[in-house]
């Protein structure tokens, strides 16, 4: 709450100085944030603001100001461009290009059949092979994907959820073949199935067996792959689906709570796995609202872990997160404008204290990004890092009347959601009821209506439009790709020891029907024998069943 004395002065100012002006020159309409929150005439000091409770110091509870004491005064965030398309070979050369351009981590995009556990020659994969990412059918493709890239030197983030265990297993074996042991590899699997049910759609199994697979990964990695981030709890796609900033962090943290509860439920010790939980947020256009959002999210997670789950280790309470600029804000019209949007979003992520960042390329509303546009996106990060000066200051907007009040407001509204979901019996229940999806859809609908009515301006789309020629030089995925993958699969299936594959798959099948078996080692065995992603997923489909969308609008 603002200071009383100041509040009285503010009212007086609104009546006199401000009122005199607005009676002749009214304020603009729609003075709202990107998430439709009304803004005030002016922000003034907060009454009884407790620096220690609300902010603390960087690297200290409640981590509002950041999880590291030095933040970017030590080293910059990891610049990590999400990439992948076509064959493993094509993607491999894009990764090498990005590393040569100064990128510091890899981020793998998989095609949809891979994300949903189908081989490229499955009829359901028709048309989708290699389209939104790289097609991976077996260990063979993974070997090609990382050919010549030393896995002890790079950290790799993989956007893979339902079949995360299988792709992680492949990565472990590729590393092993390079002579890099499991405890040396660094990286992240997204592995966040709940937001797939909510917003992204690449689920395979129902919630219960999906949560089991996640627990298996937590358990296996805490013992065997200690430097691996076992989950990236993602608000990114929730925001892309049209949520508000508050909904983004509220539903993400509620997902996080569900994962922690589940893992504790099967007997894992919170401090054994919580330090490897990471988050993934969106960076939208409203600069100040986004910065407040990240700060609020860190503070809430710290409280959740300390107060709700009694975590002891500091690391368990720190919310580390990756950020990506908002794909949904990019326009197909006047695509060069997208470079500016991405620059603003980059500032938001950096001033909000992200640990790593992907900047979108200007042509993503049209097609896959070209090499040139990917370079500009990366350069945007480098300019913010080296030239803007914002990286020299930790949490530079702390103490701003507006930022602190907005941080508090976002926190309060987030708790409302979290508590409501808890009352419903947790996130799985809330998703099954359709509550979360409905909340997001209503926000998305309101936003779109505002754009269509012109209440919200999107430059180049509903205002400042021009006639423009069709952009050329877009990247195309080779339409013959599916055939190439199919041929490779035939070779893999004929060269491997098929008897061993059958043994491994039947062991996996047997393991899947026993709740207390950790499936990770069985999946690793199968992958090592070149069992395909589709074969492994089908074994599990048979045992676990498949999740089907059931919520309608």
């Amino acid at each position: 709450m603002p200071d009383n004395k100041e509040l009285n002065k503010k009212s007086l100012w609104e009546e006199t100085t401000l009122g005199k002006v607005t009676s002749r020159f009214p304020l603009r309409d729609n003075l709202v944030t990107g998430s439709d929150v009304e803004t005030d005439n002016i922000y003034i000091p907060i009454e009884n603001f407790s620096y220690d409770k609300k902010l603390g110091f960087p690297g200290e509870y409640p981590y509002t100001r950041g999880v590291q004491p030095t933040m970017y005064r030590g080293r910059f965030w990891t610049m990590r461009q999400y990439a992948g398309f076509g064959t493993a070979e094509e993607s491999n050369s894009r990764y090498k290009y990005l590393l040569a351009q100064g990128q510091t981590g890899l981020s793998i995009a998989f095609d949809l059949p891979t994300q949903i556990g189908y081989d490229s020659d499955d009829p359901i994969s028709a048309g989708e092979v290699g389209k939104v990412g790289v097609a991976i059918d077996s260990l063979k493709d993974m070997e090609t994907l990382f050919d010549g890239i030393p896995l002890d030197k790079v950290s790799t983030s993989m956007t893979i959820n339902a079949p995360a265990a299988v792709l992680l297993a492949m990565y472990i074996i590729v590393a092993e073949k390079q002579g890099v042991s499991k405890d040396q590899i660094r990286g992240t699997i997204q592995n966040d199935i709940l937001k797939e049910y909510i917003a992204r759609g690449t689920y395979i199994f129902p919630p219960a067996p999906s949560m089991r697979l996640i627990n298996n990964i937590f358990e296996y990695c805490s013992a065997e792959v200690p430097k691996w981030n076992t989950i990236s709890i993602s608000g990114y796609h929730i925001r892309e689906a049209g949520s508000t900033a508050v909904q983004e962090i509220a539903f993400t943290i509620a997902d996080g709570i569900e994962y922690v509860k589940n893992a504790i439920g099967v007997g894992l010790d919170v401090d054994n796995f919580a330090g490897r939980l990471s988050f993934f947020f969106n960076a939208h256009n409203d600069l100040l609202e986004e910065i407040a959002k990240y700060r609020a999210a860190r503070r809430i997670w710290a409280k959740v872990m300390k107060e709700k789950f009694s975590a002891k280790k500091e690391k368990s309470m720190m919310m580390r997160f990756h950020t990506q600029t908002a794909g949904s804000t990019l326009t197909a019209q006047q695509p060069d404008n997208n470079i500016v949007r991405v620059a603003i979003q980059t500032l938001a992520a950096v001033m909000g204290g992200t640990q790593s960042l992907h900047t979108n390329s200007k042509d993503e509303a049209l097609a896959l990004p070209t090499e040139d546009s990917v370079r500009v996106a990366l350069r945007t990060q480098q300019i913010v890092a080296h030239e803007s000066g914002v990286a020299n200051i930790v949490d530079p907007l702390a103490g701003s009347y507006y930022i602190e009040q907005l941080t508090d407001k976002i926190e309060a509204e987030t708790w409302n959601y979290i508590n409501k979901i808890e009352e419903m019996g947790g996130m799985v229940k809330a998703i099954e009821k359709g509550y979360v999806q409905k909340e997001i859809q209503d926000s998305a609908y309101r936003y779109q209506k505002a754009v269509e009515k012109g209440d919200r301006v999107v430059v180049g789309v509903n205002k400042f439009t021009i006639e423009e020629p069709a952009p050329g030089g877009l990247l195309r995925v080779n339409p013959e790709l599916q055939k190439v993958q199919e041929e490779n699969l035939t070779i893999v299936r004929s060269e491997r020891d098929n008897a061993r594959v059958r043994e491994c798959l039947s062991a996996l099948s047997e393991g899947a029907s026993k709740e207390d078996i950790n499936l990770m080692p069985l999946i690793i065995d199968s992958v090592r024998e070149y069992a395909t992603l589709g074969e492994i997923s089908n074994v599990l489909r048979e045992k676990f069943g498949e999740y089907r969308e059931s919520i309608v609008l």
Partner: protein
Amino acid sequence: MELIKRITRGNTRAIARGISVIENNSDTKEELIDGLYPFTGKAQIIGITGSPGAGKSTIVDRIIQFERNNNKKIAVIAVDPSSPFSGGAILGDRLRMQTHATDPGVFIRSMASRGYLGGISAATSGAIKVFDAAGFDTIIIETIGVGQTEVEVIELADLIILTLVPGMGDEIQAMKAGIMEIADLFLVNKSDIDGADRLKSEIEYMLMLGPENDKAHTPQIKLVSAKNNSGTEELYNTMFKQLTLFKESGLLDKRRKERIKMEIEHIFIDKLKDILNTRLNLKENMGIWIEKVYNREIRPYNFVNKKMENLKKENLL
């Protein structure tokens, strides 16, 4: 009528068109329904009702599977509400049955209520005849599910299933008088959540207090979890066991005759309405009459009786 022939041969496009003819109240509607009538009466018609979120569509999806395993042809009519404001509708029930979309033995048709109350649409009864004549063994009507007033489905179905979920104990009390009395089969869905057994005993208690039923009509209560596919096969078997009992006891015939009675009455009423509409030019005159009645210039019965007299005098009635 060519369409009739094609429908009775089971042509998909013709069936779909036939339902549209009825739904859109096209000029050929009566001819179509009468033309199909001799081919009807073979299908078993099952109505499934219950609140939104009770899992009706998922249950229907499971029933479809069992029917297909038995090589039976099955049609589903899924009714969703039309918006009272725009007249538009989002029909999404079939989303939960889409795995059967390409099975030629399954026909799913979504219908908007188009302002009709009672959980179904005005064209539902006609659509049933189309499916029946087209040779479907079983026809399922899934109602909107807005609550206890959806008793109209009894006018259409041989067997009524009411889907309930734990956690709505109070609603049961409220429902006593309406939908609870017409159900032949109570289905407690989501039996994996707490309160399923309590719900079952509440239903039992309520049935005990209800009116005496003849033997064939003892309502059954089944616990299922459609999501986990547990109890669904038993539900399926019970449905058809009950239908057999109804048939043997004569209840089925009784119900079907009752249905025909209502249908004839409906047609008469609709026709009379049409006559009144044209003879009295209601479209133009109604506004004037309302004003007069509102201003107490005329009295309703007296006014209507006079109008009727006039019609009779002129031999228009």
